């Protein structure tokens, strides 16, 4: 049903626009600029993605209230890929080929992004992807406004090692591409940078929606009673986190003994949990709702007004959409057109305010600069920021810690225009190891 609403709104808009035609021909002749929204509104990922759809709708409304873009109205086109990865590709095709949208904001899981990628490249679309991901990818048509591993995972591990003194590491994740690649990078990083040996690293994967954590938590407890500081680095995704944290609390694992730092648990996920027993566990993000700036408070107020829910929370991927949307409008203004190729060129170097009091700039590799924040969970479901990087960090598409990937750079400016330039070989086209890494 939701997917039909924008179409109806278009009719509703069309009538007054037509009646204005006589007075302001310029405005009326121009079609609205179409903004595609590709987020699951049903299925497992609906829990996380629905709010992102609402965020983009809110941003579109705000932009229209400010007079639109290039004198034209913006129109949101919503489709529902229903947490079904192949359906993401079909819906992306529908948006680009039938609806002819000028830009798409969408996707959450890496597997859905991988499914959309060939479509967006074939039809030369623009996709803004707002979620932290595993890196090892660079596309001419995709802008990654979420964190690359060097903007989330690596700084978090650095923090645990330097500030908390962690020596033993549990890498626990859900069994799919993002946790596996991230953990591969982290393992290589721990071994190379801190000289951690194999027996001090415990890796564990669980299926999506795993709910029986008794054994794993008990193992973590045993692993942590070796007399050296132990931490859990969690890439556990989705709602499996709730029973995981509940089991941690019940088995008496305190954040002071074995802290858990999570990369996929934000304010939104915590709304489904009684956070009492979790106080002190950590999360690494580039934005927290508790960030103390006026732009953030304004954003929160707007969000609460938009949802009509006093208790509505904001989170990191929402900020990523906020930044991505503003970058895109800025680039369109700069280019003077919504033409994909012109916008693609214009957006590199564009810098817009983020919500934590700084600026985010679009880098030539289609990643953006972000501050890295570490927060501790509070009993009200919010995070208190305990550490942040002194300046923003630029996203790195190709990890410096993986064999093969280390030699690659991505630069979409002319004349290079290459997403996987091999600096050793001096040519565009990646490396053998890259194929292996991307599997």
């Amino acid at each position, binding site marked *: 049903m939701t997917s039909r609403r924008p179409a109806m709104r278009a009719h509703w808009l069309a009538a007054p626009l037509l009646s204005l035609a006589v007075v302001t021909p310029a405005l009326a002749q121009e079609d609205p600029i179409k903004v595609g929204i590709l987020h699951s*509104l*049903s299925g*497992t990922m*609906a*829990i996380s993605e*629905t709010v992102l759809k609402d965020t983009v709708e809110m941003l579109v409304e705000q932009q229209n209230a400010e007079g639109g873009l290039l004198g034209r109205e913006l129109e949101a086109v919503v489709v529902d890929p229903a947490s079904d990865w192949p359906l993401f590709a079909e819906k992306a095709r529908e948006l680009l080929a039938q609806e002819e949208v000028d830009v798409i904001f969408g996707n959450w899981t890496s597997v859905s992004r991988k499914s959309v990628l060939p479509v967006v490249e074939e039809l030369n679309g623009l996709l803004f992807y707002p979620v932290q991901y595993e890196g090892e990818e660079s596309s001419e048509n995709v802008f990654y406004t979420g964190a690359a591993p060097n903007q989330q995972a690596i700084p978090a591990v650095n923090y645990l090692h330097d500030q*908390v003194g962690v020596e033993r590491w549990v890498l626990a994740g859900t*069994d799919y591409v993002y946790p596996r690649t991230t953990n591969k990078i982290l393992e290589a990083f721990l071994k190379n940078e801190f000289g951690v040996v194999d027996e001090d690293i415990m890796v*564990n*994967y*669980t*299926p999506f*929606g*795993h*709910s*029986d954590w*008794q*054994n*794993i938590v*008990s*193992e973590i*407890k045993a692993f*942590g*009673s*070796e*007399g*050296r500081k132990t931490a859990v680095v969690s890439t556990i995704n989705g*709602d499996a986190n*709730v*029973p995981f944290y*509940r*089991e941690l*609390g*019940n*088995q*008496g694992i305190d*954040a*002071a003994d074995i*802290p858990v730092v999570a990369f996929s648990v934000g304010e*939104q996920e915590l*709304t*489904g949990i*009684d956070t009492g*027993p979790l106080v*002190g566990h950590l999360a690494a993000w580039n934005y927290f709702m508790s960030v*103390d700036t006026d732009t953030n*408070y304004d954003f*929160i*107020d707007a969000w*609460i007004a938009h949802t009509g829910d*006093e*208790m509505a929370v904001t989170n990191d991927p929402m900020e990523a959409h906020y930044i991505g949307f503003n970058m895109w409008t800025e680039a369109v203004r700069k280019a003077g057109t919504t033409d994909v190729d012109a916008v693609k060129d214009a957006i590199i170097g564009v810098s817009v305010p983020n919500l934590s009091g700084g600026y985010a700039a679009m880098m030539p590799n289609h990643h953006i600069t972000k501050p890295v924040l570490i927060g*501790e969970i*509070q*009993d*009200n479901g*919010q995070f*208190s*920021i*305990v550490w942040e990087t002194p300046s923003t960090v630029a996203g790195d598409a190709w990890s410096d810690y993986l064999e093969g990937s280390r030699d690659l750079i991505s630069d979409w400016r002319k004349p290079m225009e290459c997403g996987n330039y091999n600096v050793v070989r001096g040519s565009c086209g990646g490396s053998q190891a890259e194929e292996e890494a991307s599997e």
Partner: protein
Amino acid sequence: MRMLPRFLSGLLCLCLLCGLPLAAQAQDDPGQALLDPLATASYAEKGEAIEAIIESGDARSRRWLEALLGGKLQRHKDTGRFVVVVENRGRNWPVVDALSFEDAGEMSRRELDRIGINNALRGQLQGALAVLDLHADEVRERREAARALLGDVDAGLVEPIRAVIDGEEDAEVRRLLEQALAIHRLEEGEAAAVDALSGSLNAQVRSALNAASRSEDPELAAAATSALADIEQKMTLNRGLETLYFGLSLGSVLVLAAIGLAITFGVMGGINMAHGELIMLGAYTTWAMQQLLPGQPGLALLLSIPAGFLVAALAGVVIERGVIQFLKGRPLETLLATFGVSLILQQLVRTVISPQNRSVVTPEWMSGSLMLNEGLSLTLNRLYVLGFALVVFAALMLVMRRTRLGLEVRAVTQNRGMARAMGIRATRVDILTFALGAGVAGLAGVALSQLTNVGPNLGQNYIIDSFMVVVFGGVGNLWGTLVAGLSLGVINQVLEPWAGAVLAKIVVLVFIILFIQKRPRGLFPQKGRAAEG
């Protein structure tokens, strides 16, 4: 809030009128001088400020430390006034003054600076509060405080703890405190401390001994290693028991989820794919109950047991009358139709309630764990669910074996035609059986709301597992379901440590497939001619 700005501005005027005296009064209060140093970004300086508060012996220090620990001690950005936030959800928070603890109206989060703490400071605060708790009146509280001190004793705490030990009458508290001191001595490198710790199964003790066994001092390292070997031996038995408990607990969940299916399977002759969604309805009933009775999660949970049963049973009747009765004897169509019903129910919940998971509160008496000994503790929520599963099973057995309804259900299941010829109203039995099976699914939902997420996908996660249990146990056999559920649970948990969660599931599935090849009718097949039909 509408009233409050006026109230606040009134307060402000008052302050302005008597401006200087009030400010002076705040200055005079030694508490202000103690709190002021907390307003710094450096965690080290905050640590010193906390130390100063503890040493001051100020009567309010306990409330300050607790507020600080909860992140509720905050400072007004402009006036520098310290307040304690009473409720920190939403945008405007009711606050009380941190010095007088008198109501100070509401303040918005924009005006307040939180005095943030990190894990190190949290440890320091918890240690300080635990020392204060050592003087509590309740023995239980003192024991908990003493246990919290294990591994957290630093040089500054040694003397106060000694004093407490001398005055303490409870032997358990004394023992724990001695142990806490011994861990501290061990960390200082004292080999004699090992004796005081040997034989303890406590995780903190093991952790300290492990650290000591890597010590430079050969005497200490040797003593610690041999003490560890002793402990390790005792732990092996504990680990075995623990795994068994994990298995039974997982098994009890499977039994609860599957047993309703086993009942309906018998009369329907096919799988009810919407069974998972009936479980989901039970879980949502628990959530709704807790919304109706805010602040009483325990009572709400108890009331959810009958409520969940009724809601799911009603839904079951509607499904039976609306869909299944028209598809009698056509198992494939039944399967597809009920699958459709399951999708409809899921989307209904998504549209009407929310696609987001709902938070179901675990009551106080179900949180934490029951400690059997220092190395073995059973998590309470799972223990309750295990007990609940057994009670539900016993009740069902009673219904099936001892009541008229049970007799009729068994008759209809075994031979429908003959039962009708004997004057049993098969349609009525169908409805009642389906209601019973669905109701039990609702009960499973109530129990699951305490273990896992309450969301639209809850049912989907359990339907395959339940199906597996029913087929493995022998279709329509309650004992079979119990034995199959518990044994699958135990097998899964035994495999998990060395195979991993994903592989363990696969291995169990393969095992069942092989088993069904050998014995197509499951563990407890129905015997006699009726079974052939």
